[in-house]
Structure formats: structure tokens, C-alpha cells
């Protein structure tokens, strides 16, 4: 077992449950408190609902760039660019992580609907780019294979 798989050992209980008890503010704008409910979500649907939506539609106007294979799941580069009009926020989700939502970015007017960052993936999984516009929620997805490596496990 390598580090990437160890990261999420003992996924049940712990932080997620504790944060749920702490209650959840509504939105994800910067001047509001950390959205515990969204970060406790287990799936794309959970997260969309916690962010105030009903469901997300697939969209070809979201460019999600990530490697086909991650040599190490501890660091997976992700780049997202939305071509959807009036993009308000961009979120990164990893389907098989213990909690799906990694990061949620609010995009104010004047800032490009573009984000580049690096996230952890517990195992081979779909990666989602979730975009909120004034027309609702949209997503693009891509599978990233997380591999084992090394001579000592």
C-alpha cells in the first residue's frame, strides 16, 4: 500500500460527522463561513444540493484537464476552464474520496472562469469539474487512474 492509499484510511466517522454537527451555512461565497455540508457530501448530487442547486447537467463547455494516470494520488494536477456564460463558481470533486468536494472557487466579475490546482485522490476515480452559472449547475468529468509505485510498497 502506498502513501496515496494510506491518506484516506479509516474514512468513516471522524471529521465529516463532526462538521455536520457544526451546522451548515448556505452559500459558498467568500464572506460566508466554510460550507461544512458541502464538504461532507459523498457524491456529486450531495454537493450540488448543499450548494443550493437541484441537479447538475453535463456540459461540453467546461474544459477539465487532468492526467490519465496519476503517478501519485497525493498530488493530482487539475485545470478547469469554463466557457459557460456568467460562471459564478468552479468546484473540484473526486467521486471516490471519502468526501467528494475538494475545493470550491468563487469567480467574481473581472476574474477568468479558470482555475489550476492540485488535489489528492484516494484511488482511481472520476474527477468532476462542477460549474455554477446563473443558469444552474453543470459538470464535466474525467477518469484518473491512480497507480502504485516503488520497490518497498
Amino acid at each position: 500500500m502506498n502513501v496515496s492509499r494510506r491518506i484516506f484510511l479509516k474514512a468513516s466517522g471522524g471529521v465529516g460527522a463532526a462538521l455536520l454537527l457544526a451546522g451548515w451555512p448556505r452559500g459558498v461565497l467568500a464572506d460566508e463561513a466554510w460550507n461544512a455540508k458541502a464538504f461532507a457530501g459523498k457524491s456529486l448530487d450531495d454537493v450540488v444540493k448543499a450548494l443550493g442547486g437541484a441537479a447538475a447537467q453535463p456540459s461540453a463547455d467546461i474544459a477539465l484537464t487532468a492526467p490519465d494516470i496519476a503517478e501519485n494520488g497525493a498530488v493530482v494536477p487539475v485545470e478547469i476552464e469554463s466557457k459557460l456564460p456568467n460562471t459564478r463558481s468552479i468546484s473540484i470533486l473526486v467521486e471516490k474520496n471519502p468526501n467528494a468536494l475538494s475545493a470550491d472557487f468563487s469567480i467574481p466579475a473581472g476574474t477568468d472562469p479558470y482555475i489550476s490546482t492540485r488535489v489528492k485522490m484516494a484511488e482511481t476515480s472520476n474527477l468532476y469539474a462542477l460549474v455554477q452559472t446563473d443558469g444552474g449547475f453543470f459538470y464535466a468529468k474525467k477518469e484518473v487512474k491512480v497507480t502504485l509505485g516503488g520497490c518497498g510498497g
Partner: protein
Amino acid sequence: MADPMRIRATLEGGKVIVKVLMAHEMETGYRKDANGNLIPAHYIQEVNATCNGKTVLSAQWGPSVSKNPFLAFRFSGANKGDKVVISWKDNKGESRTDEAVIA
């Protein structure tokens, strides 16, 4: 106290390209130490970037953003010499603010 961020802000084609490296453990709360005890979660939850007093990016993060986080974004409406100010706050209430001059 946490180490300073490395911030690069450059003006290219009318847009400011910002690249940030932050020194942070981003501990998930799911890992165990050598003695089998859970290592408490410790991760950045909020990131805020401003330029000339205006917010240019804000974010909420969970523990699955990678250790020593990297972030890049672009915005318009600033000039060389202006300052980009970036702050983060983690789940233990620790925070850090650093700035860079747009080059």
C-alpha cells in the same frame, strides 16, 4: 508560524496571471502516526485574493487539496506595480497573509 507563500503575479496580454505556492500540511484527519494514533485534521479552509481592495478570487477548501497547495488563476483590471494580496485561514484558526507586486 507558517512559512510565507510564494506568490508570482505577472501582467500578460492585459491579464494578471497569479501563481501561488502555500506551505501547509493539509492533514486529512484520516491518517495515523507511527504509534497508530489518528493525526488530527489540519487544513486550509478559506483562501482570499484581493487587488486594489477588490476581491479577485475566493475559495473554500477541504482536506483533499494537496499538501503544500498550488493555485493559479487570472484576472483583469490591474496594472504593473499593483499589489496582489493573498490570505488563507485553516481549520485551527491559523492564518497567513502575503503579497506580491504585479510584474
